[in-house]
Protein backbone atom coordinates (compact mmCIF):
# COMPACT_ATOMS: atom_id res chain seq x y z
CA UNK A 1 0.00 0.00 0.00
CA UNK A 2 2.83 2.35 0.92
CA UNK A 3 4.73 1.57 -2.27
CA UNK A 4 1.61 2.19 -4.33
CA UNK A 5 1.22 5.63 -2.78
CA UNK A 6 4.87 6.37 -3.40
CA UNK A 7 4.50 5.27 -7.04
CA UNK A 8 1.61 7.70 -7.52
CA UNK A 9 3.62 10.49 -5.94
CA UNK A 10 6.64 9.69 -8.14
CA UNK A 11 4.48 9.73 -11.27
CA UNK A 12 2.91 13.05 -10.22
CA UNK A 13 6.34 14.63 -9.71
CA UNK A 14 7.46 13.33 -13.10
CA UNK A 15 4.46 14.78 -14.90
CA UNK A 16 5.85 18.33 -14.62
CA UNK A 17 8.91 17.16 -16.59
CA UNK A 18 7.06 15.25 -19.30
CA UNK A 19 7.30 16.63 -22.84
CA UNK A 20 5.53 15.79 -26.07
CA UNK A 21 7.67 13.75 -28.45
CA UNK A 22 7.47 13.82 -32.23
CA UNK A 23 4.14 12.38 -33.46
CA UNK A 24 4.41 8.92 -35.00
CA UNK A 25 2.21 8.78 -38.09
CA UNK A 26 1.56 5.43 -39.76
CA UNK A 27 -0.16 4.94 -43.12
CA UNK A 28 -1.65 1.49 -43.62
CA UNK A 29 -1.84 -0.38 -46.95
CA UNK A 30 -5.52 0.58 -47.31
CA UNK A 31 -4.73 4.25 -46.83
CA UNK A 32 -5.79 4.34 -43.18
CA UNK A 33 -3.92 6.71 -40.91
CA UNK A 34 -2.94 6.06 -37.31
CA UNK A 35 -1.27 8.64 -35.08
CA UNK A 36 0.50 8.08 -31.76
CA UNK A 37 2.24 10.73 -29.71
CA UNK A 38 5.00 9.63 -27.30
CA UNK A 39 5.30 11.18 -23.85
CA UNK A 40 9.00 11.86 -23.25
CA UNK A 41 10.89 12.12 -19.99
CA UNK A 42 14.61 12.96 -19.99
CA UNK A 43 15.44 11.15 -23.22
CA UNK A 44 13.13 8.21 -22.59
CA UNK A 45 9.64 7.55 -23.84
CA UNK A 46 7.20 6.66 -21.05
CA UNK A 47 4.15 5.70 -23.08
CA UNK A 48 2.28 6.55 -26.27
CA UNK A 49 -0.97 8.47 -26.48
CA UNK A 50 -3.34 7.47 -29.31
CA UNK A 51 -4.34 10.61 -31.15
CA UNK A 52 -7.50 11.21 -33.13
CA UNK A 53 -6.54 13.29 -36.19
CA UNK A 54 -10.16 14.17 -36.94
CA UNK A 55 -11.06 15.42 -33.46
CA UNK A 56 -7.45 16.66 -33.03
CA UNK A 57 -7.49 15.31 -29.50
CA UNK A 58 -6.16 12.33 -27.53
CA UNK A 59 -8.10 9.09 -27.77
CA UNK A 60 -8.59 6.69 -24.82
CA UNK A 61 -5.92 4.07 -24.24
CA UNK A 62 -6.91 0.82 -25.93
CA UNK A 63 -8.82 2.65 -28.63
CA UNK A 64 -6.39 3.59 -31.39
CA UNK A 65 -8.03 5.65 -34.13
CA UNK A 66 -7.72 4.59 -37.75
CA UNK A 67 -9.10 7.10 -40.23
CA UNK A 68 -9.07 7.25 -44.01
CA UNK A 69 -8.24 10.05 -46.39
CA UNK A 70 -6.79 12.42 -43.83
CA UNK A 71 -3.59 14.35 -44.38
CA UNK A 72 -1.91 14.67 -40.98
CA UNK A 73 -0.27 17.97 -40.12
CA UNK A 74 2.41 16.81 -37.69
CA UNK A 75 3.00 20.32 -36.33
CA UNK A 76 -0.71 20.79 -35.63
CA UNK A 77 -0.82 17.40 -33.84
CA UNK A 78 2.14 18.43 -31.74
CA UNK A 79 0.54 21.75 -30.82
CA UNK A 80 -2.73 20.04 -29.88
CA UNK A 81 -0.89 17.52 -27.72
CA UNK A 82 1.14 20.24 -26.04
CA UNK A 83 -2.10 21.92 -25.17
CA UNK A 84 -3.56 18.61 -23.90
CA UNK A 85 -0.40 18.02 -21.88
CA UNK A 86 -1.37 20.89 -19.58
CA UNK A 87 -4.59 19.07 -18.75
CA UNK A 88 -3.02 15.68 -18.02
CA UNK A 89 -3.34 14.45 -14.46
CA UNK A 90 -2.23 11.44 -12.51
CA UNK A 91 -5.05 9.28 -11.13
CA UNK A 92 -4.99 8.32 -7.50
CA UNK A 93 -4.97 4.55 -8.05
CA UNK A 94 -2.58 2.05 -9.59
CA UNK A 95 -2.40 -1.43 -10.97
CA UNK A 96 0.51 -3.80 -10.47
CA UNK A 97 2.13 -5.65 -13.34
CA UNK A 98 3.79 -8.79 -12.06
CA UNK A 99 5.86 -9.69 -15.16
CA UNK A 100 7.49 -6.25 -15.16
CA UNK A 101 7.55 -5.94 -11.35
CA UNK A 102 6.22 -2.42 -11.78
CA UNK A 103 3.31 -0.22 -10.84
CA UNK A 104 1.33 1.20 -13.76
CA UNK A 105 0.06 4.64 -12.80
CA UNK A 106 -2.73 5.92 -15.08
CA UNK A 107 -2.58 9.33 -16.70
CA UNK A 108 -5.92 10.92 -17.50
CA UNK A 109 -6.98 13.60 -19.93
CA UNK A 110 -10.50 14.81 -19.20
CA UNK A 111 -12.60 11.59 -18.93
CA UNK A 112 -10.10 9.32 -20.66
CA UNK A 113 -7.17 7.33 -19.39
CA UNK A 114 -4.68 8.06 -22.17
CA UNK A 115 -1.42 6.55 -20.92
CA UNK A 116 0.38 4.85 -18.06
CA UNK A 117 3.60 5.68 -16.27
CA UNK A 118 5.45 2.62 -15.05
CA UNK A 119 7.16 2.92 -11.69
CA UNK A 120 9.47 0.40 -9.98
CA UNK A 121 7.92 -1.90 -7.37
CA UNK A 122 9.35 0.18 -4.51
CA UNK A 123 7.71 3.25 -6.03
CA UNK A 124 10.91 5.25 -6.42
CA UNK A 125 12.05 5.06 -10.06
CA UNK A 126 10.38 5.51 -13.43
CA UNK A 127 10.65 2.63 -15.85
CA UNK A 128 10.76 3.79 -19.46
CA UNK A 129 9.21 2.06 -22.44
CA UNK A 130 12.50 1.07 -24.09
CA UNK A 131 10.85 -0.21 -27.27
CA UNK A 132 9.01 3.07 -27.82
CA UNK A 133 12.16 5.03 -26.95
CA UNK A 134 13.93 3.17 -29.75
CA UNK A 135 11.08 3.99 -32.13
CA UNK A 136 11.35 7.70 -31.29
CA UNK A 137 15.13 7.53 -31.65
CA UNK A 138 14.73 6.18 -35.19
CA UNK A 139 12.10 8.76 -36.02
CA UNK A 140 14.19 11.77 -35.07
CA UNK A 141 17.51 10.54 -36.49
Amino acid sequence: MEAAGKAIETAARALAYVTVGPPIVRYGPGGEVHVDVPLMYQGFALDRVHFDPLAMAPSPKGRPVHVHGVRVDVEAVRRAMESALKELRILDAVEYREPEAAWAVPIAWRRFIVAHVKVSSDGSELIPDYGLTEEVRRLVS
Partner: protein
Amino acid sequence: MVRELLREKLLLVLLALYAALCVVVPGFLESSLFLVDYNALALIACFLMVSRALEVSGAVSFAARALLDKFRGSPKLLLLSLIMLCEMTALVMMNDGVVFVVTPLVTVLARLTGLDVAFLAALVALAANIGSSASPIGNPQNIIVWQHFHLAFHVFVAGMIPYTIAASLILALYAAIALRKAERAVLAPPPPVKVDAGLAALSLALLALDVALAHLELQVVALLVTVAAMAVHRRDLLKSVDVPLLACFALMFMDFRGLSRALATASLIPCLHGSLEVMLASAALCQIIINVPATLALIDHVDGLWRPLAVGVNLGALGLAWGSMANIIALRLSGAKAKEFMKHTVPVMLAILGAVLALALLGIYP
Protein backbone atom coordinates in the same frame (compact mmCIF):
# COMPACT_ATOMS: atom_id res chain seq x y z
CA MET B 1 13.60 -5.30 -44.03
CA VAL B 2 13.66 -4.19 -47.68
CA ARG B 3 10.61 -2.01 -47.02
CA GLU B 4 12.36 -0.48 -44.00
CA LEU B 5 15.44 0.27 -46.10
CA LEU B 6 13.39 1.86 -48.86
CA ARG B 7 11.75 4.17 -46.31
CA GLU B 8 15.11 5.78 -45.65
CA LYS B 9 15.18 8.82 -47.92
CA LEU B 10 18.88 9.48 -47.39
CA LEU B 11 19.70 5.93 -48.37
CA LEU B 12 17.68 6.31 -51.57
CA VAL B 13 19.47 9.55 -52.45
CA LEU B 14 22.85 7.91 -51.86
CA LEU B 15 21.85 4.89 -53.94
CA ALA B 16 20.75 7.20 -56.76
CA LEU B 17 24.08 9.03 -56.60
CA TYR B 18 25.90 5.68 -56.61
CA ALA B 19 23.96 4.58 -59.71
CA ALA B 20 24.70 7.89 -61.43
CA LEU B 21 28.42 7.57 -60.67
CA CYS B 22 28.43 4.02 -62.06
CA VAL B 23 27.08 5.40 -65.34
CA VAL B 24 29.18 8.55 -65.57
CA VAL B 25 32.57 7.57 -64.07
CA PRO B 26 34.42 4.80 -65.92
CA GLY B 27 35.54 1.97 -63.64
CA PHE B 28 33.62 3.30 -60.61
CA LEU B 29 31.58 0.12 -60.16
CA GLU B 30 34.72 -2.03 -59.86
CA SER B 31 36.64 0.36 -57.63
CA SER B 32 33.82 1.57 -55.39
CA LEU B 33 34.11 -1.23 -52.81
CA PHE B 34 37.75 -0.28 -52.25
CA LEU B 35 36.76 3.28 -51.36
CA VAL B 36 35.13 2.17 -48.12
CA ASP B 37 37.35 2.34 -45.03
CA TYR B 38 36.05 -0.84 -43.42
CA ASN B 39 38.05 -0.25 -40.26
CA ALA B 40 36.41 3.14 -39.76
CA LEU B 41 33.00 1.65 -40.59
CA ALA B 42 33.53 -1.14 -38.02
CA LEU B 43 34.43 1.45 -35.39
CA ILE B 44 31.44 3.64 -36.26
CA ALA B 45 29.21 0.58 -35.74
CA CYS B 46 31.02 -0.20 -32.45
CA PHE B 47 30.73 3.26 -30.98
CA LEU B 48 27.14 3.72 -32.16
CA MET B 49 26.28 0.57 -30.21
CA VAL B 50 28.29 1.46 -27.11
CA SER B 51 26.98 5.02 -27.12
CA ARG B 52 23.41 3.74 -27.42
CA ALA B 53 23.99 1.36 -24.50
CA LEU B 54 25.33 4.21 -22.38
CA GLU B 55 22.29 6.29 -23.32
CA VAL B 56 19.83 3.48 -22.47
CA SER B 57 21.61 2.76 -19.18
CA GLY B 58 20.19 6.02 -17.82
CA ALA B 59 23.61 7.22 -16.61
CA VAL B 60 23.45 10.56 -18.46
CA SER B 61 19.89 11.10 -17.34
CA PHE B 62 21.03 10.41 -13.76
CA ALA B 63 23.82 13.00 -14.06
CA ALA B 64 21.43 15.58 -15.53
CA ARG B 65 18.99 14.98 -12.68
CA ALA B 66 21.79 15.40 -10.12
CA LEU B 67 22.61 18.80 -11.65
CA LEU B 68 18.96 19.78 -11.58
CA ASP B 69 18.79 18.83 -7.94
CA LYS B 70 21.91 20.86 -7.12
CA PHE B 71 21.13 24.00 -9.10
CA ARG B 72 17.33 23.99 -9.04
CA GLY B 73 17.22 27.46 -7.51
CA SER B 74 19.16 29.05 -10.35
CA PRO B 75 18.18 28.34 -13.97
CA LYS B 76 21.31 30.18 -15.12
CA LEU B 77 23.72 27.96 -13.18
CA LEU B 78 21.67 24.91 -14.05
CA LEU B 79 21.84 25.59 -17.80
CA LEU B 80 25.55 26.40 -17.71
CA SER B 81 26.18 23.16 -15.86
CA LEU B 82 24.02 21.24 -18.35
CA ILE B 83 26.09 22.72 -21.19
CA MET B 84 29.21 21.44 -19.46
CA LEU B 85 27.61 18.04 -18.94
CA CYS B 86 26.79 17.85 -22.67
CA GLU B 87 30.37 18.77 -23.59
CA MET B 88 31.94 16.28 -21.20
CA THR B 89 29.56 13.46 -22.10
CA ALA B 90 30.11 14.02 -25.83
CA LEU B 91 33.76 13.13 -25.29
CA VAL B 92 32.84 9.50 -24.66
CA MET B 93 29.44 9.22 -26.27
CA MET B 94 28.27 10.10 -29.79
CA ASN B 95 27.03 13.70 -29.83
CA ASP B 96 23.55 12.83 -31.12
CA GLY B 97 23.00 10.50 -28.13
CA VAL B 98 23.80 13.33 -25.73
CA VAL B 99 21.32 15.60 -27.48
CA PHE B 100 18.63 12.90 -27.37
CA VAL B 101 18.91 12.66 -23.57
CA VAL B 102 19.29 16.32 -22.64
CA THR B 103 16.90 18.04 -25.10
CA PRO B 104 13.65 16.86 -23.41
CA LEU B 105 15.00 18.18 -20.11
CA VAL B 106 15.77 21.65 -21.45
CA THR B 107 12.41 21.69 -23.24
CA VAL B 108 10.80 21.38 -19.82
CA LEU B 109 13.12 24.01 -18.38
CA ALA B 110 11.99 26.35 -21.15
CA ARG B 111 8.40 25.71 -20.15
CA LEU B 112 9.05 26.20 -16.42
CA THR B 113 11.31 29.24 -16.67
CA GLY B 114 9.84 31.02 -19.70
CA LEU B 115 13.13 30.83 -21.61
CA ASP B 116 13.04 30.37 -25.39
CA VAL B 117 13.00 26.66 -26.26
CA ALA B 118 14.90 27.26 -29.53
CA PHE B 119 17.66 28.97 -27.57
CA LEU B 120 17.98 26.11 -25.08
CA ALA B 121 17.84 23.45 -27.81
CA ALA B 122 20.55 25.36 -29.70
CA LEU B 123 22.74 25.46 -26.58
CA VAL B 124 22.43 21.69 -26.15
CA ALA B 125 23.23 20.95 -29.80
CA LEU B 126 26.16 23.39 -29.82
CA ALA B 127 27.56 21.96 -26.58
CA ALA B 128 27.30 18.36 -27.80
CA ASN B 129 28.90 19.23 -31.15
CA ILE B 130 31.69 21.24 -29.53
CA GLY B 131 32.39 18.63 -26.83
CA SER B 132 32.52 15.82 -29.37
CA SER B 133 35.09 17.67 -31.50
CA ALA B 134 37.94 16.88 -29.07
CA SER B 135 37.40 13.14 -29.14
CA PRO B 136 38.16 10.68 -31.96
CA ILE B 137 35.01 8.80 -30.90
CA GLY B 138 32.79 11.84 -30.38
CA ASN B 139 31.20 11.81 -33.82
CA PRO B 140 31.44 9.82 -37.08
CA GLN B 141 33.53 12.40 -38.97
CA ASN B 142 36.17 12.28 -36.22
CA ILE B 143 36.28 8.46 -36.37
CA ILE B 144 36.82 8.71 -40.14
CA VAL B 145 39.66 11.25 -39.81
CA TRP B 146 41.24 9.33 -36.89
CA GLN B 147 41.29 6.08 -38.87
CA HIS B 148 42.18 7.50 -42.27
CA PHE B 149 45.29 9.27 -41.01
CA HIS B 150 46.24 6.43 -38.61
CA LEU B 151 46.46 8.79 -35.66
CA ALA B 152 47.09 7.78 -32.08
CA PHE B 153 44.14 8.58 -29.81
CA HIS B 154 46.11 11.11 -27.75
CA VAL B 155 47.52 12.79 -30.86
CA PHE B 156 44.00 13.45 -32.13
CA VAL B 157 42.88 14.80 -28.74
CA ALA B 158 45.96 17.01 -28.40
CA GLY B 159 45.42 18.35 -31.91
CA MET B 160 41.78 19.22 -31.37
CA ILE B 161 41.75 20.41 -27.76
CA PRO B 162 42.72 24.06 -28.52
CA TYR B 163 39.71 24.33 -30.87
CA THR B 164 37.39 22.67 -28.33
CA ILE B 165 38.52 24.92 -25.49
CA ALA B 166 38.20 28.09 -27.59
CA ALA B 167 34.76 27.05 -28.86
CA SER B 168 33.60 26.06 -25.34
CA LEU B 169 34.65 29.43 -23.93
CA ILE B 170 32.79 31.29 -26.67
CA LEU B 171 29.67 29.17 -26.09
CA ALA B 172 29.85 29.70 -22.32
CA LEU B 173 30.21 33.45 -22.83
CA TYR B 174 27.28 33.54 -25.26
CA ALA B 175 25.11 31.50 -22.87
CA ALA B 176 26.07 33.59 -19.84
CA ILE B 177 25.21 36.83 -21.67
CA ALA B 178 21.94 35.46 -23.03
CA LEU B 179 20.97 34.03 -19.66
CA ARG B 180 21.81 37.11 -17.58
CA LYS B 181 18.14 38.05 -17.39
CA ALA B 182 16.96 34.53 -16.60
CA GLU B 183 14.63 34.76 -13.67
CA ARG B 184 15.19 32.77 -10.54
CA ALA B 185 12.84 29.85 -10.22
CA VAL B 186 12.79 27.02 -7.74
CA LEU B 187 12.20 23.76 -9.55
CA ALA B 188 11.02 20.61 -7.84
CA PRO B 189 13.54 17.81 -8.40
CA PRO B 190 12.25 15.23 -10.89
CA PRO B 191 12.14 11.55 -9.93
CA PRO B 192 14.91 9.33 -11.28
CA VAL B 193 14.70 6.97 -14.21
CA LYS B 194 15.81 3.41 -13.54
CA VAL B 195 19.61 3.26 -14.00
CA ASP B 196 21.14 0.04 -15.30
CA ALA B 197 24.51 0.37 -13.55
CA GLY B 198 25.74 -2.92 -15.04
CA LEU B 199 25.05 -1.68 -18.55
CA ALA B 200 26.73 1.67 -17.87
CA ALA B 201 29.83 -0.11 -16.53
CA LEU B 202 29.86 -2.52 -19.47
CA SER B 203 29.55 0.38 -21.93
CA LEU B 204 32.49 2.24 -20.39
CA ALA B 205 34.59 -0.94 -20.31
CA LEU B 206 33.77 -1.64 -23.96
CA LEU B 207 34.60 1.95 -24.84
CA ALA B 208 38.09 1.60 -23.38
CA LEU B 209 38.58 -1.84 -24.89
CA ASP B 210 37.45 -0.73 -28.36
CA VAL B 211 39.81 2.25 -28.30
CA ALA B 212 42.68 -0.07 -27.30
CA LEU B 213 41.80 -2.57 -30.03
CA ALA B 214 41.57 0.24 -32.59
CA HIS B 215 45.04 1.37 -31.50
CA LEU B 216 46.26 -2.17 -32.26
CA GLU B 217 44.57 -1.99 -35.70
CA LEU B 218 42.07 -4.67 -34.59
CA GLN B 219 38.92 -2.77 -35.47
CA VAL B 220 36.96 -5.79 -36.68
CA VAL B 221 37.83 -7.64 -33.46
CA ALA B 222 36.50 -4.62 -31.55
CA LEU B 223 33.22 -4.91 -33.44
CA LEU B 224 32.94 -8.65 -32.76
CA VAL B 225 33.70 -8.19 -29.05
CA THR B 226 31.13 -5.39 -28.77
CA VAL B 227 28.42 -7.41 -30.52
CA ALA B 228 29.18 -10.47 -28.37
CA ALA B 229 29.13 -8.48 -25.12
CA MET B 230 25.83 -6.84 -26.03
CA ALA B 231 24.34 -10.18 -27.06
CA VAL B 232 25.19 -11.62 -23.65
CA HIS B 233 24.19 -8.64 -21.49
CA ARG B 234 21.34 -6.91 -23.36
CA ARG B 235 20.30 -8.78 -26.50
CA ASP B 236 17.53 -6.25 -27.18
CA LEU B 237 20.14 -3.56 -27.76
CA LEU B 238 21.41 -5.41 -30.83
CA LYS B 239 18.06 -4.63 -32.44
CA SER B 240 18.85 -0.95 -32.01
CA VAL B 241 21.76 -1.24 -34.44
CA ASP B 242 20.73 1.11 -37.20
CA VAL B 243 21.50 -0.98 -40.29
CA PRO B 244 20.17 1.58 -42.79
CA LEU B 245 22.39 4.23 -41.16
CA LEU B 246 25.47 1.99 -41.50
CA ALA B 247 24.52 1.34 -45.13
CA CYS B 248 24.32 5.13 -45.58
CA PHE B 249 27.84 5.52 -44.17
CA ALA B 250 29.19 2.82 -46.53
CA LEU B 251 27.52 4.53 -49.49
CA MET B 252 28.85 7.93 -48.39
CA PHE B 253 32.38 6.52 -48.50
CA MET B 254 31.83 5.24 -52.04
CA ASP B 255 29.86 8.19 -53.38
CA PHE B 256 31.78 11.14 -51.99
CA ARG B 257 35.29 9.74 -52.22
CA GLY B 258 34.48 8.46 -55.73
CA LEU B 259 32.97 11.75 -56.82
CA SER B 260 35.81 13.87 -55.45
CA ARG B 261 38.44 11.62 -57.05
CA ALA B 262 36.65 11.80 -60.39
CA LEU B 263 36.46 15.59 -60.13
CA ALA B 264 40.15 15.78 -59.15
CA THR B 265 41.11 13.60 -62.14
CA ALA B 266 39.23 16.01 -64.38
CA SER B 267 41.13 18.87 -62.65
CA LEU B 268 37.83 20.27 -61.40
CA ILE B 269 38.93 20.37 -57.76
CA PRO B 270 42.44 21.27 -56.65
CA CYS B 271 44.51 19.58 -53.97
CA LEU B 272 44.30 21.83 -50.90
CA HIS B 273 47.67 22.71 -49.39
CA GLY B 274 47.49 25.38 -46.69
CA SER B 275 45.89 24.84 -43.27
CA LEU B 276 43.63 27.84 -43.67
CA GLU B 277 42.55 26.72 -47.13
CA VAL B 278 41.66 23.22 -45.87
CA MET B 279 39.79 24.51 -42.82
CA LEU B 280 37.73 27.05 -44.75
CA ALA B 281 36.97 24.66 -47.60
CA SER B 282 35.81 21.91 -45.24
CA ALA B 283 33.71 24.29 -43.10
CA ALA B 284 32.14 25.76 -46.25
CA LEU B 285 31.42 22.35 -47.78
CA CYS B 286 29.59 21.31 -44.60
CA GLN B 287 27.05 24.05 -45.31
CA ILE B 288 26.15 22.30 -48.57
CA ILE B 289 26.50 18.54 -48.00
CA ILE B 290 26.72 18.23 -44.16
CA ASN B 291 29.73 17.05 -42.22
CA VAL B 292 30.33 13.35 -42.95
CA PRO B 293 30.03 13.65 -46.76
CA ALA B 294 32.16 16.82 -46.62
CA THR B 295 34.86 14.95 -44.68
CA LEU B 296 34.85 12.11 -47.21
CA ALA B 297 34.82 14.44 -50.20
CA LEU B 298 37.96 16.23 -48.96
CA ILE B 299 39.87 13.53 -47.12
CA ASP B 300 41.94 12.47 -50.14
CA HIS B 301 42.77 16.04 -51.16
CA VAL B 302 44.17 17.72 -48.04
CA ASP B 303 47.79 16.71 -48.33
CA GLY B 304 47.84 15.07 -44.87
CA LEU B 305 46.48 18.16 -43.09
CA TRP B 306 44.12 16.25 -40.81
CA ARG B 307 43.81 18.89 -38.10
CA PRO B 308 42.50 21.72 -40.30
CA LEU B 309 40.13 19.20 -41.90
CA ALA B 310 38.84 18.02 -38.51
CA VAL B 311 38.50 21.60 -37.25
CA GLY B 312 36.68 22.64 -40.45
CA VAL B 313 34.15 19.81 -40.44
CA ASN B 314 33.46 20.16 -36.73
CA LEU B 315 33.06 23.92 -37.05
CA GLY B 316 30.91 23.56 -40.17
CA ALA B 317 28.47 21.32 -38.29
CA LEU B 318 27.58 24.02 -35.77
CA GLY B 319 25.65 26.63 -37.71
CA LEU B 320 22.89 25.42 -39.97
CA ALA B 321 19.99 23.40 -38.64
CA TRP B 322 20.81 20.52 -40.99
CA GLY B 323 24.59 20.78 -40.36
CA SER B 324 24.69 17.76 -38.08
CA MET B 325 22.50 14.95 -36.80
CA ALA B 326 22.72 16.48 -33.31
CA ASN B 327 21.11 19.70 -34.60
CA ILE B 328 18.33 17.79 -36.35
CA ILE B 329 17.54 15.72 -33.23
CA ALA B 330 17.52 18.82 -31.01
CA LEU B 331 15.04 20.48 -33.36
CA ARG B 332 12.75 17.50 -33.74
CA LEU B 333 12.64 16.72 -30.04
CA SER B 334 12.17 20.28 -28.84
CA GLY B 335 9.70 21.25 -31.56
CA ALA B 336 11.63 24.50 -32.04
CA LYS B 337 11.60 26.25 -35.42
CA ALA B 338 14.77 25.94 -37.51
CA LYS B 339 14.89 29.69 -38.14
CA GLU B 340 14.75 30.47 -34.41
CA PHE B 341 17.32 27.77 -33.69
CA MET B 342 19.76 29.21 -36.23
CA LYS B 343 19.43 32.69 -34.72
CA HIS B 344 21.62 31.25 -31.95
CA THR B 345 23.76 28.64 -33.69
CA VAL B 346 24.92 30.80 -36.61
CA PRO B 347 26.28 33.71 -34.49
CA VAL B 348 28.12 31.23 -32.22
CA MET B 349 29.58 29.46 -35.26
CA LEU B 350 30.69 32.79 -36.76
CA ALA B 351 32.29 33.84 -33.46
CA ILE B 352 34.21 30.56 -33.25
CA LEU B 353 35.20 30.89 -36.92
CA GLY B 354 36.49 34.39 -36.16
CA ALA B 355 38.56 33.11 -33.24
CA VAL B 356 40.02 30.22 -35.25
CA LEU B 357 40.73 32.55 -38.21
CA ALA B 358 42.59 34.94 -35.89
CA LEU B 359 44.71 32.05 -34.61
CA ALA B 360 45.29 30.83 -38.17
CA LEU B 361 46.37 34.27 -39.40
CA LEU B 362 48.81 34.45 -36.50
CA GLY B 363 50.15 31.09 -37.66
CA ILE B 364 49.37 29.45 -34.30
CA TYR B 365 46.48 27.13 -35.13
CA PRO B 366 45.24 24.82 -36.70
